[in-house]
């Protein structure tokens, strides 16, 4: 009897720790479940509107085009071959055809130009806002984001009204008697460039502003004090400190600029084709879905490679510093 009563606490102690262990495990499981529940909307969105369509595109790019659009379920690498070569219809030989490469190159060129353009306009703008008194910065930021209140399509139509032959610029210049014939402004690469800069400028200004806002302006004073001229202060202090913002802004302008569709479509008038339009045509008039899919993936690959190169470069710089 005595031994039994004595053994009770002895056996109950491991039971207690076992129960505690189970309870802790249950809490952990509960926490894990909550975490997945909270994540699920984001995961679902990424899978449904990101990964799934991408997989479809990937599969389509390795199929043959259907006669009236769509695809035929026959494996083929023709879409990728077609990007660089032209297949002779009669002899079945391949000749190098740079037409699509040229479209890609023009797109890269235009996207780069508009990135530089937005940088040249965006940096002074961001600097201006960041040097205002804090109470007034929000007003300026609000003005920068104001264009987002209107759809990009409508904003581009507004650009057309300004640039076309009977547009605001031409009418004013003709009324002033400076020109007799309307200037050819719309449906040029210049118009596309202007449209891209206009559309993506806020994406340049905002990240640069975010970086400059954190800049300690005493650093600028310290540099002035140490014999740096204005230009040297910009080069040696402001730009290095604002660099993350500059890079983010450039990526945010270059990437969507490269795949832009509406702006080159409306302001380029189909004359200066960019990748976005070329891909759209494959899915529309040309009824070559596999080629459109392949072109989309090649575009994505270019952007990815560019970003990876940058990340590698930036990472190495940081490691050195």
């Amino acid at each position, binding site marked *: 009897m005595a031994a039994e009563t004595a053994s009770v606490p002895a056996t109950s102690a491991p039971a207690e720790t076992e129960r505690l262990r189970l309870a802790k495990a249950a809490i952990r499981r509960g926490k894990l479940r909550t975490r997945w529940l909270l994540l699920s909307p984001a995961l679902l969105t990424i899978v449904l509107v990101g990964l799934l369509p991408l997989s479809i595109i990937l599969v389509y790019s390795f199929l043959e085009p259907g006669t009236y659009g769509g695809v035929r379920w026959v494996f083929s690498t023709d879409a990728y071959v077609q990007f660089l070569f032209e297949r002779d219809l009669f002899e079945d030989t391949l000749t190098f055809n740079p037409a699509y490469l040229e479209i890609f190159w023009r797109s890269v060129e235009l996207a780069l130009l508009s990135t530089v353009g937005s940088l040249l306009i965006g940096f002074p703008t961001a600097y201006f806002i960041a040097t205002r008194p804090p109470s007034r910065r929000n007003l300026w930021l609000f003005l920068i984001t104001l264009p987002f209140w209107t759809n990009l399509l409508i904003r581009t139509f507004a650009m057309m009204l300004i640039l076309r032959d009977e547009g605001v610029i031409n009418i004013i210049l003709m009324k002033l008697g400076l020109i007799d014939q309307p200037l050819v402004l719309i449906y040029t690469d210049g118009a596309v460039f202007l449209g891209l800069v206009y559309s993506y400028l806020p994406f340049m200004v905002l990240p640069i502003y975010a970086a400059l806002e954190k800049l300690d302006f005493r650093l600028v004073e310290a540099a002035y*004090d140490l014999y740096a001229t204005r230009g040297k202060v910009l080069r040696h202090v402001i730009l290095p400190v604002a660099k993350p913002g500059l890079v983010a802004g450039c990526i945010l302008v270059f990437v969507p600029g490269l795949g832009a569709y509406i702006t080159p479509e409306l302001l380029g008038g189909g004359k200066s084709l960019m990748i976005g339009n070329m891909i759209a045509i494959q899915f529309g008039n040309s009824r070559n879905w596999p080629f459109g899919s392949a072109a989309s993936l090649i575009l994505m690959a270019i952007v990815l490679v560019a970003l990876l190169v940058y990340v590698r470069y930036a990472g190495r710089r940081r490691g050195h510093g």
Partner: protein
Amino acid sequence: MTGDGAAADRTAGRSDRAGAAAIEIRRVRKVFGSGQERAVVALDDVSLTIRDNEFFTLLGPSGCGKTTLLRLIAGFEQPTAGEILLFGSHLEHLPPHRRPVNTVFQQYALFPHMTVAENIGFGLMMQGRPKREIDETVRRMLALVRMDDLAGRRTDQLSGGQQQRVALARALAPHPKVLLLDEPLSALDLKLRKEMQIELKRLQHETGITFIFVTHDQEEALTMSDRIAVMSDGAILQVGTPREIYDHPARRFVADFIGEINILPAELLETREASGGASARVRLSSGQVRLARLPDGPVAAGRVNVAVRPEHAGLQPAGEGAALTGTLSNVVYFGTGTHYHLELDGPGGEGGRFVVELQNRLGAGADHAIGARLGILLTDGSLQVLCD
């Protein structure tokens, strides 16, 4: 102001051999903002001469204009009126990067994207010096501030004291004619601050560069400075050596701001010039007459205030010709000494409070009980007449 300007000139004249004027500030006025209501006068008709190879301190509470004066010398602000001269040549219209003066900033303002060595070499690089010379100077500066092994570190990997040293080395590297220091020690803890005080004094001695040091810490000012200018409300109240400022404050504000002091009402009887400075006979509220030192500056006739440091006074039995008498209300022991707080006798018991500080000697206990009536011993010369 004119009185103090004259005082400053007199002190300057007394020790000409100490060197030429490094910085001359002539009737400088600085107003921030515009309009009747919004304009703030930061400096009002300030004149000051700072000598070559001098450790000069601008001392005052926050908002007194000391930092504004420093920023005017550095060139970050332009004076509304007046002239600033550096070794005789005008500075007013030069931008900061063309003035041979460098600043150590309050929060150091080290460049976060550069190493310690790059920070220190920045000024020389901007001056376009050859790389060999820059490397050589950076190495010398690192040794001077005892940071030799940290040249390759990023500045955010440094402690507060190390950042302070880098900031000093960076400002000293281009060998400026004048070094401006804007409360550089305020971000450090007490122990480090004491260390850096000695370090700064050493650096000033070794480099021979004129230091202009801004602080609100009176102890810091007294410890380090060759001369101090006490500022308040955009004006310089008194310029002098730490001893002059402490022992012979000219104004009530200066007396109050630096250390502890007793201020008593008195009546000015007659003044006399002497070799050690002008003095006057004053009658205290008790009717006792003592000899007091006169300040450099105009003193009102008749009713004046006189100041006495607690450690310059003594205790004696009540009566027997004591300068003042009072009742002991509190005894505060603080290690090296003891403060005796007395309620002075006066008309209607409103005599005010007087503090006497006595040195503690080993084995001697407190020999006065609270409530005891005591006399205050004031010798001739322990009293200082104030201008206001």
